[in-house]
């Protein structure tokens, strides 16, 4: 019992020491970004700029990289107007922006268009930026929020703010953006359509193999294009022999264009194995 108490006491003392270290360090709480309601009527340019500053330091997570540690250009330390114009004049610049506002917006939405020398991803020779598109997760800023950050960056050096205050007509889109579930993008090619509708989960197609459903690599030899269309939108009509009736009805999931892309592609699949 004596040894039990001693070992337990020693272990607890050590554990409490570690706990004490966590108490003497700075106590900070990292709040998740809160979506704020925007009262457009009460919005002034000053409050819009202040909102941009909050977003720059908070939800936008810009200061994680854009700081004095040199991982990304320190936007607070340089004159954004002057620097933007220099970069627009750089021979490496291939974007479409014509002024500071356009350059800043482009940099946030498509960071790979122009990567400042020395700040590209390692091994890409400054062709690829480590910065994520700011309108996509995790930051996922709305157009209005991006405008607010541009306003803040223009204003901080005393330069003219060129972005316009949001209007009531610009807000519904932003609000919809927050609440409506995102829809998958429309497939533009057979490969995209196959990936989008998960065909390869059951069928052998492209480079994947599956024996749950019939092999689609030679479906063009077995079925006409009309039959292929029917199989996709009404799969229960004819069930391929030896296979379970588990094909989902995609008629309400697919657009006409996607159906046509798939049907045309499958009609051309006439060899059993893919090259």
């Amino acid at each position: 019992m004596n040894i039990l108490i001693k070992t337990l006491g020693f272990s607890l003392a050590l554990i409490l020491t570690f706990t004490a270290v966590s108490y003497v360090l700075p106590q900070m709480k990292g709040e998740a970004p809160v979506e704020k309601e925007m009262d457009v009527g009460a919005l002034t340019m000053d409050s819009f700029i202040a909102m941009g500053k909050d977003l720059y330091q908070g939800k936008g997570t810009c200061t994680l990289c854009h700081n004095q540690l040199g991982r990304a250009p320190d936007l607070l330390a340089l004159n954004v107007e002057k620097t933007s114009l220099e970069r627009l004049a750089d021979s490496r610049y291939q974007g479409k922006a014509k002024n500071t506002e356009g350059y800043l917006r482009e940099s946030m939405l498509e960071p790979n268009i122009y990567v400042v020398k020395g700040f590209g991803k390692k091994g890409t020779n400054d062709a690829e930026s480590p910065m994520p598109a700011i309108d996509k997760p995790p930051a996922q800023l709305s157009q209005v929020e991006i405008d607010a950050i541009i306003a803040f960056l223009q204003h901080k050096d005393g330069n003219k703010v060129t972005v316009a205050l949001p209007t009531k007509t610009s807000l519904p889109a932003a609000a919809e953006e927050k609440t409506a579930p995102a829809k998958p993008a429309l497939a533009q090619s057979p490969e995209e359509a196959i990936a989008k509708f998960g065909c390869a989960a059951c069928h052998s197609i492209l480079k994947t193999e599956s024996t749950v459903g019939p092999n689609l690599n030679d479906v063009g030899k077995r079925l006409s294009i009309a039959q292929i269309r029917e199989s996709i939108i009404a799969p229960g009509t004819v069930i391929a022999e030896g296979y379970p009736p588990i094909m989902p009805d995609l008629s309400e999931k697919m657009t006409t264009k996607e159906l046509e892309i798939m049907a045309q592609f499958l009609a051309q699949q006439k060899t059993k194995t893919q090259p």
Partner: protein
Amino acid sequence: MKSVLYFPLLWTWRRVLLVLMTAIIGLGAGGFPFTASAADPAQEQQITAADSGGITGETKASLILAPKLKRADYPNIGVSSRAIVWVVAQMHLFFGALVLAVPIFVLVIEFIGFKTNDDRYDDMAHEFMKISLTAYAITALFGGTLALSLFLLYPDFMNYMMRVFGSQMLVYAVLFFLESMLLYIYYYGWNALRYGNSKWVHLTLGLLLNAVGTTLLVVANSWTTFMMAPSGVDSAGAVIGNIWEIMKGPLWNPLNLHRFIANVAFGGAVVGAYAAFKFLCAKTAADKAHYDWMGYTSNFIAILAFLPLPFAGYWLMAEIYAYSQQMGILAMGGILAWLFVIQAVLICTILFAGNYYLWSGMARTEGSERYQWLIKYIAVVLVFGFLVWVTPHNVIFTTNEIAKLGGGHHPVLGPLGIMPAKNIAVFLMLIFTFLSFQIYRRADKVITVSWQAWGNTLMAAIYIVACANVIFAGVYYGYFTNTVYKVGSSVMQVASTLAVIVAGSVIDTLMFKGAKTLPSSWGKVSDRSQYALFALPVAFTWLMALMGYVRSSVRTHWHVYTVMKDNSPDNFIPTLATVGNTVTFATVLFLIFLLFIFWIANLSGIKQKPPVSAGKIVPAESAA
């Protein structure tokens, strides 16, 4: 034509199957339970529509997006859901790590015993397994509790995960059954399959047990890494890849390696504490000798696995940076960066304890006197390394303090606060810990090879060049080049440290050929040294919980990073004190369970003496 009844019936059976699977998985290792609820009615409708098509779970998942939850979608039981899941998951991970790790080194020890015909190894390996077996039941209990907690507190998140991983869960359940069967056969068949060809059968069972155990580990890891860096789904969370694409995210392999090595180190440390406990309780010299040797072996395993752990950690962190620079910076330079100061205290505790135990153990042989002069230098490096490591880059200053300092950083100590300085400290500490290990191994040897002077000179030169390289790379890349090259410097430092470890092991192996071995007095080691064996698992446990929290917290307010937002009331990063309290609670709980396991393991070796009646021994049943 399809029957109208067919699909509801199918759906019912599928639900029953999934619930059963969930129960199994939960009991096994805290898998993801199934729930049919969906937060968004539109999504529910979509599920129903898909059902009418009679499609498989996997294809169905491909059409459904990650739910967008509101705060009201999370059940509120009046206590922080995150705190409950955090502690229970941590307990499950502690025991899971132990249960999966112990059979790995037990198999190696058993094999050594078999090849050397030394029964001591076999007995020790069997005794280690006794701990693993008891811990297995507790792992399952916490796994079940975790599954239940997740099912109750995060139903929509679990629903989504079930849809994404689908039938992989069934594979996990099958693996769990296999693991259970193999574990029991391996343990209870030990003496029945102890010698000759039967031993090969037993070793094969051990190998299978480890293969299944490691597969369980990597399968469960895929859930974790999917949450951190999702793959096989589109930006809205709809499944667009097969299960292999979902599992094989960018962080999966780095985490697999890191957890595998860490588990072995953790397992070694825990069984070391068991040996220390038994040593302290031992009454006879023979028992003391046995448990001293057992403690030494455990420490050897723990430290040997611990040395390459930082390299696996670097790989994991490098991949995190490559996947998302924001995520990497948040961990290493953002709000979570302060946790690495606590990490420094913990790792240094492990290094101090490991080194102290080795130095104390050198007293077992007289030959150690030749090397004891080195200990004070090793101690100096460890202490200075620790001081550099815990130096913060900046702290919260008052205006007066900033004015006095002349800036936000201390003019002299400020440069020691950044990563390059800490890397130098860490790698030098690792190199000098290996030196402790090397002199310990040499303590009972009298080297007889003709080239020993050359060998020693070469070894010393390797140490000097490696230390110089570690310091140069850290200073040059850390302070005189762009930030992006700082990470690159660690490659040189890792290579230098590994070169010492590999070269030291090879040179010693060659030099020990024909060496005379001096007698070692097992059991003649101070009681104080045994407390170092307690410090190891305590620090390891705290460290494991802390780093697990960091890894999980880099997702910030996302259940599945960039795909499914966490809108629960606990979607914030708590203060360090809250983290410290929770980690401490989990560690103390684990310690209590661990002592229970030690007690149970001890109890199984105790036999009650038959009662004596009038000078005649009577069977216990009759006496009762």
